[in-house]
Structure formats: C-alpha cells, structure tokens
C-alpha cells in the first residue's frame, strides 16, 4: 500500500464485504430454502435464516423420490451421470489435446499446418450455434441417450490444444536435444519429459474443463430423453416447470445446492490452479 489512510482501508473492506454479500446472496437464499420444510416455503415472505429441515431435505432429495409427482431419476443417479459426463469431457479433452499438440509442436510432417488450421476453426464454433446439425449427426450415429453422446461431441476443442501448444513451446529446445542424446524416442520423451513438465498446466486445465463439463445444459437437454441419463444441471429446469403446479422449493433448492457443490468445491479447493487455468486458456 502506498500510503496509510485508515478510513480508506475501512471503506475498502466495507465495499468488498458488500460485494461478497451481493455475490453470495443468491447462494444464501438457496441454502436457507433447502433447510425449511415444503409448507414454510409456500408462505411469503420466505425465510432469510436457516431452518431445521436440512438433513430431512437432503435425504429425501438424494435418496428418495426427489420431487413428488414428477418422472425424473433420483438425484444420486443424476449426480453420477453429471460426474461421468464431466470426467469424460475433461479427461477426453486433455488426452486428445495433449497428443495433438505434441504432434504439432514436435514433429515436422506434411499437412501439419492444415491440421493446425482445422483445429483452429473448431475454436470458433461453440456448440450452441451448430446445435441442430450436430444433434442430427449424433442421432444418426445412434449415440442419443449414452455417455458417449453426452461427451464425445464436446471433446474436440481447440482451446486445450492451443494451451498445450503454448506450454510445449516454452519447454526449452535443449530438453529435446538432451533427451535425444540420451536416446529417448518420441513417445518416451512424451511420457518422461513432456507430461511431467506440463503437470500443473494439465491440472489447471482439468479444473476449468471439469466445470465446463459439469455445467453443460443445452447439449444434454437435447440428446437425453431417457430419464436414466438425466444430469443434475438439466433436472433443475424440469423441476422449475413442475414447481408451477406443486411448489416444493425446499427440494428444488436442495437439488440446486447439490448441483453446485462439486464445481464450487473444485474452484475453491483448487483456487490457484483454477486462476492459472482461466488465464491460460484465454490467452
């Protein structure tokens, strides 16, 4: 700090705490709603302090039938689906991006630049804008209602390939020269040198991609019709629709809470990696 101004410091802290209050308010309200019983949640004004029904709601949501009167999978099943999708997307992206970036950086081969541009183009097309034809392709391949259909079309992204390319370019050339003198072939070099040297970048990217995968909404909404394949994030919308008939806000908000916890936990627990991943992938 440049100068000592106690009043300004106090103002700083007040503003930051206010900011946190604004940012946290929706989450707090969600949490509070998840701790009351269904009846209390139909009376305005809704409570602002936690109630005593947290465990009850928790158990009913996670293991019970969930929202009564709807045809949806139990929440634990949806959490499992989300986990599978998020893991397949993030690990799949990391794997194919690592090897393609390795090929592009460390080999000189015909059409190298052609492949590079082909990958570059994909960077430009988020799934939302080519949603209908992509859906048709997946349907034609018989991948609807499967984990493969949920994850594979989202796996190819140029962002990860670009980031790894960037990382590999910062590995000194002498590493490769030294490894060649030591007698390491391409794959050996990849496993023994490149992967260990990119460890933190891989972890950082994993944090970002896990959140990206977990939070997918439109894509799973389109390609899963089977309730067994529903992901937790999708289910919120169905519950909101159901709420118009039979409002059970305590269960809906508990589900929302459960849907938020894994990605929020990942961000908070791996904050340093998360910040690194965020700033690197957008470079």
């Amino acid at each position, binding site marked *: 700090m440049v100068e000592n101004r106690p009043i300004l410091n106090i103002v700083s802290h007040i503003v930051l705490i206010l900011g946190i209050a604004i940012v946290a308010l929706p989450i707090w309200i969600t949490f509070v709603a998840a701790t009351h019983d269904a009846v209390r949640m139909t009376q305005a004004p809704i409570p602002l302090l936690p109630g005593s029904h947290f465990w009850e709601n928790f158990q009913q949501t996670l293991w019970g039938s969930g929202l009564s009167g709807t045809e949806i999978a139990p929440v634990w099943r949806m959490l499992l689906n989300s986990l599978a999708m998020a893991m397949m997307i993030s690990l799949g992206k990391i794997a194919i991006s690592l090897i393609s970036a390795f090929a592009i950086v460390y080999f000189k081969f015909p059409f190298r630049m052609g492949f590079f541009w082909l990958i570059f183009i994909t960077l430009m097309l988020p799934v939302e804008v080519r949603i209908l034809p992509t859906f048709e392709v997946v349907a034609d391949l018989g991948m609807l209602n499967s984990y493969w259909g949920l994850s594979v079309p989202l796996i190819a992204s140029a962002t990860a390939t670009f980031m790894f390319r960037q990382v590999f370019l910062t590995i000194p050339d*002498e590493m490769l*020269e*030294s*490894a*060649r*003198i030591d*007698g*390491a072939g391409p794959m050996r070099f990849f496993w023994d040198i490149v992967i260990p040297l990119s460890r933190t970048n891989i972890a950082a990217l994993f944090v970002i991609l896990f959140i990206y995968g977990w939070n997918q909404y439109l894509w799973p909404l389109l390609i899963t019709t089977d309730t067994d394949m529903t992901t937790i994030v999708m289910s919120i919308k169905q519950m909101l629709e159901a709420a118009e008939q039979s409002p059970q806000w305590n269960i809906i908000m508990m589900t929302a809470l459960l849907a938020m916890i894994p990605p929020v936990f990942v961000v908070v627990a791996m904050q340093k990696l998360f910040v690194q991943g965020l700033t690197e992938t957008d470079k």
Partner: protein
Amino acid sequence: MASITLKDLVKSYGDTEVLHHIDGAINDGEFVVIVGPSGCGKSTLLRMIAGLETVTSGDIQIGDRVVNNLEPANRDIAMVFQNYALYPHMSVRENMGYGLKIRGNSKADINRRVEEAAAILEIGPYLDRKPRQLSGGQRQRVAMGRAIVRDPQVFLFDEPLSNLDAKLRVQMRLEIRKLQQRLGVTSIYVTHDQVEAMTLGDRLMVLNGGYVEQFGTPIELYDRPATLFVAGFIGSPSMNFLPAEVASGMVTLANGARLAGGGTASGKVTLGLRPEHLIADETGPIEINVQLCEQLGAITLLHGHLSGTDVECVASMPGHVSAAPGTLMRFAIAPEHLHMFDTQSGKRVDA
C-alpha cells in the same frame, strides 16, 4: 575414445550456406576448442557433430564410422548444454542415470556409475536434490556428470560456462580441463571467449562467417596468426593494426617512421603490432601521442594515436605509468614481433 574427422562439411538452410567446406582432424583424446564471434556457425558445427542438425554435404567421422545419418543417441557422444538442459522434474540421480536407463542398464549398474561420477565431481551430497535446489556451479557439475556417466567416446560442450559469474567461470574452466585430462576423452568445446579458448584447448579452430580461419595450438595462433581476423581475435588487448609499406627489409609507417623488419615482403600491407610487444625506448621509431592511461595495477594500457596521424594505437607497459593527455612517447619493437597481412585478403604475408 576416438578421433573425429570432418571432411568438406557444408551446412545450408535453404539457399543460405552457413558453413563452408569445413575440414579438420581431431585426434584421439585431444581437447579442441571451436571459437569465434556469435553467428559464426560454431554452435551449428557442434550440433552437427552431435547429430542435432543434419549434414548438407560432406562427412563427419567418429572413430572409423561415418555418423552423418546416425541418431544422436547412437553416436556415442555426450553433450553439455549452455543452459545445462537438466530435466527439472528429476532428481540429480535420475538426471544422470536417464540415458543409461533408456539403454536398459541394470539399476545396480546405473547407481554404481552415477555414484562414481558424483564422487569425481564432488556432487555426492546433492544426488537426491532437484536441479532448482542447486546453485549455478552445482548445476554445471551435474550437467558434466550426466555426460561422464555415459562413458562416451566424445564430449561436446556448447558454451557451458557462459551462465556463470566471472569468478566461478575461471574455477570451472580449470576443473573441466583437469577432468578432461584425467578421463582422456576426446572433447570439442564451443565458446566465444578467446581467453577460455586459449586456456582450455590443445588446439583451437577459429571460425568466422562459416569459414575456418585457422586451426592450431594456442601459441601458434598467438605467434603466427594466419589472418587479420585471428590476429585481432586472439590476444587481449587486441593487436594494433597500422597501414604500412614494406620494401627491402624496411617498414614505413603512415607518419614516415621506419622500422627494420618485413623480410621479403613488399608493397602496401597492414602491419600488426601486439600492445605488449611495444617496448618503451626513447630512441625507438614508433611515436605515440597518448590520450588516455588505463591503470590495471600489474600493467598500464596507453591509448593514443600514432603521432602525426589519426591511426589508433595501444601500448601495454608493465607496472605503473602515468602520462598526461598529449604526451609523446616512443617505442621500439623486435623485428620478429611484426605481423604483416595483405590489406585486401587479410591473409598473412610471410616474412
């Protein structure tokens, strides 16, 4: 152990030829330093010998094998890089043993060899540390250790001391020399530092613009530089170059001063005089108009002009000398210390 032969070696990038028809024979166990200014192609030449750059034409022979198309790993060489190229995620022990591990040596054998090398280099206590926990000098030793454990036929050094501070550089220079003498492995060492080259090499290959200017022992290079470039590059402070004319055993300087020497040469030449060969002599033929004294303690450097001209000239005198700007001082020089070069081609004109 092996000798190395370079035959008519050429390297081009596209249409640009960067190394022009290099020939040279390096004897078994010899320590050869390739020296030259940056961009002269010395590193490229070393990397070609290592197998990290392809050969455009000509041959590289290690022992009796032509190695042009062999992978670096199959050339039986080891290389110490400028930035050491230690694998940052491996311990010192793993770094040193990595090449042996790939070759499939047994664990026991790798350990034995790593520990032997570590003992020679006195890095035993650091074997389980990571490179980032070591000082510059220690990293340098690990890089050397990595070369030693392989027990190769040839050591290649690519400016290995340039990342160290001046004091450590002098110390490591001595250690490299001692180590090479002890192991007797044929070594090629690349540097741009002529002092390092002079102190390390059995022989020096002076490279300039992709051409070999001269290949000989340090003393040969100092006493009989073959070209203007070598004459200016070897020795510190650099040789003075003065325009002169030679006729029948007499050299005439630009200000008309005449000195004996020059042998059978004749016509216009560039005369080379080493500052340390100029001897203060009140009757000497060379008069210098001193502009500046640099007192270095053991010696004093006098910077000035050849009087009556604007040709710059430096003289080195033992001990402490002081002279006010504008002082005229006279010097003599022995005839065998005159170097004459053709002004056009830069080639030595032999006396």
